[in-house]
């Protein structure tokens, strides 16, 4: 150790070095800093012993508390499941009419269903199930694949054009692009289709055009949409006589749908959502439809 030299002004020791006539104070590190450092070191040693800490090749020290985040999350999920099962088990067992007339149970379903819908369905169908271009509104009565609880549940489970083995399959052919109908024929049948939902039944077409369009419709479209154009739940073909239009009901949109065809896609939820969750969503939608204006 060098000679301790004291600074005459402050009384602190100096480093003992001199740089161009300047000397530097050697002020001691304040004790709170030492205390803090020592406390953190002691804490870390305790933590190493209590918690998983040191890697040992293909394993690690498990710690006395046996903490394991993967186990924690499994336990958390299980306890949440148990808490929920008080009412969720009733959903799996009881009749739909009994469930829907139980206002307390329906409150639980509305809350859980709202969260499930928001996480999974709202991206396409909208936060209030109002739908959008290409994505059906779920609160009206125009259901492509049927409005029965079983039909809705099956659509959620297997999806539409989803690649799931039981998927519903539906395709509107591209009549124009694939050259099955020429431009004039598509314009005629568009006018006819538009006239079906028109209040005054006249549409914008002349009687001759509508007659030509009707003939094309019967020859080409009726096999899926039905001779009365009311659609069919087996093929997912929409009703063309109502005012619900998935891809737009103006002349240009109808022309586009016929020319380029349509093939909607709804993912299958069987592998993503549990049976109970899918049933909650189904009841949530039924309830939403009943309570919508």
């Amino acid at each position, binding site marked *: 150790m060098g000679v301790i030299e004291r600074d005459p002004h402050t009384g602190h020791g100096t480093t003992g070095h001199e740089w161009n006539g300047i000397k530097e104070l050697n002020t001691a590190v304040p004790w709170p800093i030492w205390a803090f450092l020592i406390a953190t070191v002691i804490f870390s040693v305790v933590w190493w012993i209590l918690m998983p800490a040191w890697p040992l090749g*293909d394993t690690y020290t498990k710690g006395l508390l046996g903490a394991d985040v993967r186990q*924690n*999350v499994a336990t958390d*999920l299980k306890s949440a499941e148990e808490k929920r099962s008080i009412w969720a088990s009733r959903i799996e067992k009881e009749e739909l009419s009994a469930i829907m007339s139980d206002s307390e149970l329906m409150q639980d379903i509305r809350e859980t269903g709202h969260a499930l819908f928001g996480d999974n369905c709202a*991206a*396409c169908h909208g*936060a209030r199930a109002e739908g959008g271009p*290409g994505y059906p509104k779920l609160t009206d009565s125009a259901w492509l694949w049927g409005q029965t609880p079983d039909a809705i549940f099956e659509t959620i489970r297997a999806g539409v054009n989803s690649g799931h083995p039981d998927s519903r399959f539906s395709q509107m052919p591209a009549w124009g692009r694939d050259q099955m109908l020429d431009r004039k024929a598509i314009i005629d049948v568009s006018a006819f289709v538009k006239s079906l939902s028109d209040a005054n039944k006249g549409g914008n077409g002349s009687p001759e055009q509508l007659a030509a369009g009707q003939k094309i419709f019967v020859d080409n479209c009726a096999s899926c949409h039905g001779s009365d154009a009311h659609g069919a739940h087996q093929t997912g073909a929409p009703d063309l006589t109502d005012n619900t239009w998935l891809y737009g009901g103006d002349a240009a949109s109808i022309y586009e749908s016929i020319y380029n065809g349509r093939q909607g*896609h*709804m993912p299958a939820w069987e592998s993503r959502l549990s049976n109970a969750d899918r049933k909650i969503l189904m009841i949530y939608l039924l309830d939403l439809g009943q309570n919508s204006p």
Partner: protein
Amino acid sequence: MFQAHYKLERYSVGLVIAIIIAASIGGIVEIAPLFTIDQTVEEAPGMRVYTPLELAGRNIYVREGCYACHSQMIRTLRDEVERYGPYSLAVESQYDHPMLWGSKRTGPDLARIGGKYSDQWHVAHLENPRDVVPASIMPAYSFLARTQLRTDDLSMHLTALKKVGVPYTDSMIEKAVEDAYGQAAPFSALADGVVTRYGDATHIRAFDGDPGSVSEMDALVAYLQIIGRLTDAAHEQKSSGDAE
């Protein structure tokens, strides 16, 4: 004890050795676990690799900085598992160089986005997010659909990844450009090669709805639809955890 460094500071060789020892401790703590990474990462024997188109999409994801707002890491927390699906496993990002776990969620986590929504939805959403999610603050990426995908460098990307351990075969590297076109053109002869090299489960679709060309939209949607689906290890872990 507090005075010991006065002594050490007076011997330059001793000081150098002490600095090396102190710095090594930090290094060892960070590096040593990597020596046993093969034993600590879960097994996923059937795990597939990114196809050239998906890889190109991944590069676009990196280029556009998607990771700045979207994480790809579901943590072991109940609310995350309930919202997004099984928590992420290390093995799921074993072919990710660099990994895109991210650390910030302005938008939702994307680790289980693959297959959750349709291609059409992804295209509509990237064109203008407000069209499908009115409250979204995500920027629009409509230029992706107008931009032809650059494919001439795909073989080099595959080669680089092979050097860091991704099991691309020589024929995958050689046919990278053809496979990128084939995956987005289901009715072309090139599509068969993609199935041969990358397996039956590979998505072969016109992701952007236009089978005639391969746009950056094709690549990004192809990537989004494969995120979390290279292996089922996380789902198996979940079901085996349920059985316990």
